[in-house]
């Protein structure tokens, strides 16, 4: 259980995390979603005490991280795949971390095997690919068999197999009753990995709910209709609660009516329909809508796209 209360972090004039409050519960995978610069990494660093909050507090299982007598078995953190000395080999890196909590050597070899690093364990980390670095970071996070896992962008740089491996790993860890907080800027990945989402934008929590609710609740479901008499159909369906977009000459996008009603109304008017497709919002669309006003670095092109999709 991770509890953040009114957590704030400012760097000079810039506010990275702005008065956020959230709880990460055990037994499920919680996704930390947000565009770059939203404050995800800063928040995660504050959880494990690397950055000192400007205001507010964050605790792990009721205590500040630094107050735990055996921090590695409390929280396993992958904060930055580069948090390793490049001149040291992977095995020695893990042995050095393990020594602080007298974690036995065989556990080090266990996590090396678990993360598939056997063949490179004696190689210097400086030569590692991004993916191998991620695996080493995950190995370090698992060393102390922790009850809570914090993984910042764990699939960054992994190949598709690695992505699936991380997905089944975090799902398995949560199923064992552990607390798992996982950050990503990839909405598609979150849709299949996380149970619960905390969406950050510009340092604020802009959504904190189950994944299903965010997909279902964020965007109106619309219906795509094709008809040779599109204009006639549009006037038949028109009412104050209904929005109709006439995109192509034979196609309408209708919001505010379900497909059944549209079909019935068309039949009553004797209008032929060639297509009637309900369109549900993807998590990606929901996410874009949520963070629409909170994207910090927006290019001109994507800004225009967002305007159009609105």
């Amino acid at each position, binding site marked *: 259980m991770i509890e953040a209360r009114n957590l704030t972090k400012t760097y000079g004039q810039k506010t990275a995390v702005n008065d956020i409050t959230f709880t990460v519960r055990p037994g499920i995978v919680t996704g930390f979603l947000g565009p770059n610069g939203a404050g995800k990494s800063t928040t995660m*660093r504050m959880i494990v005490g690397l950055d000192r909050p400007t205001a507010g507090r964050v605790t792990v299982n009721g205590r500040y991280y630094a107050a735990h007598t*055996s921090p590695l*078995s409390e*929280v396993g953190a992958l904060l930055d795949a580069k*948090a390793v000395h490049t001149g040291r080999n992977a095995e020695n890196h893990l042995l050095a*971390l393990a020594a602080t909590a007298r974690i036995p050597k065989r556990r080090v070899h266990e996590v090396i095997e678990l993360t*598939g690093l056997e063949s490179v364990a004696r190689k210097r980390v400086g030569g590692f690919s991004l993916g191998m670095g991620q695996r080493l970071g995950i190995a370090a996070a698992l060393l*102390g068999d922790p009850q809570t896992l914090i993984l910042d962008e764990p699939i960054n740089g992994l190949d598709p197999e690695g992505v699936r491996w991380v997905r*089944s790993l975090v799902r398995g860890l949560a199923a064992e009753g552990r607390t798992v907080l996982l950050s990503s800027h990839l909405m598609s990945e979150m849709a299949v990995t996380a149970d619960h989402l905390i969406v950050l934008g510009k340092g604020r929590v802009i959504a904190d709910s189950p994944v299903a609710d965010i997909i279902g609740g964020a965007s109106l479901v619309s219906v795509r209709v094709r008809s040779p008499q599109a204009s006639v159909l549009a006037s038949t369906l028109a009412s104050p609660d209904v929005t109709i977009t006439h995109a192509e000459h034979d196609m309408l996008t209708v919001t505010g009516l379900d497909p059944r009603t549209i079909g019935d109304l068309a039949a009553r008017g004797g209008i032929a329909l060639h297509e009637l497709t309900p369109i549900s919002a993807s998590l990606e669309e929901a996410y874009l809508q949520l963070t629409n006003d909170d994207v910090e670095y927006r290019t001109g092109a994507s800004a225009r796209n967002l305007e159009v999709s609105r």
Partner: protein
Amino acid sequence: MTTDSLNGALEVPELRMPRGATASPVRFAGILRSETIKLRSLRSTVWSYAILIAMSFALTAVLAATLASTMEGSLPAEAQTGIVMQVSSFPVALGQLVAAVLGVLFIAGEYGTGMIRSTFTAVPRRLPVLWAKALVLFVATFVVGLISTVGAYLIGSPFLSGSGIAAPLSHPDVLRAVIGGALYLALIAVFALGVGTVVRNSAGGISVVLGIILILPTVLQFIPAEWATNTVPYLISEAGLGALGLQSDNPALEPWQQLLVVLGWVGASLTAGAILMKRRDA
């Protein structure tokens, strides 16, 4: 098991600790072990120490041979002891540069690579890491320093005795040069560790330490003001080399005072490092 999980099998690997092998509370002994592993698992450290020893031996042999060939007639015992001291503590001149670089790199290397975040995640109270690093560095450098100085004595003696110059290793002044030389190297390394903790950058830290050890004494001597001249004996390298009995014409401070000056520099740099390490974001 690994191949299965890599292939995306949903079977969850066994993640638990082996039976009876849970993580223990963080204690200083564990942090010491961790820092020992870190020190000896970097090629740069091992090579630096090896080079320190090898260069000491080689250069001492050259120095002793040169001295022996220029000495004529029999010298008084005191002068003989002085020469033996000079030869035995010769590794210090070069060794202090290596010790300074190693001390800075031991901590700045962690900041530079991001390793410090892993370190502080394992030891969130932070300060024990600095104390453990200081202790490990002190002991390792002292041992390497002692090998260098004793080695220098053993290598230099045959050359010198050929010219009738000899002093036993057990002579208090020779012991002071041999043990004091190793102690000085170890203290320079810890001083550099403190500076590295403050600066958090390898190149910057090395520049600062070498500036204080090598350049500052020369600069101060060239400033034609009384305060500058008076400050020189209180510099870490001047006081340190003086305490070894190598600068006998330095009347400003007693050897024990010189040792205190060196300890003062070390204490100041470690204190500054500790305060900033605790305070700053990693």
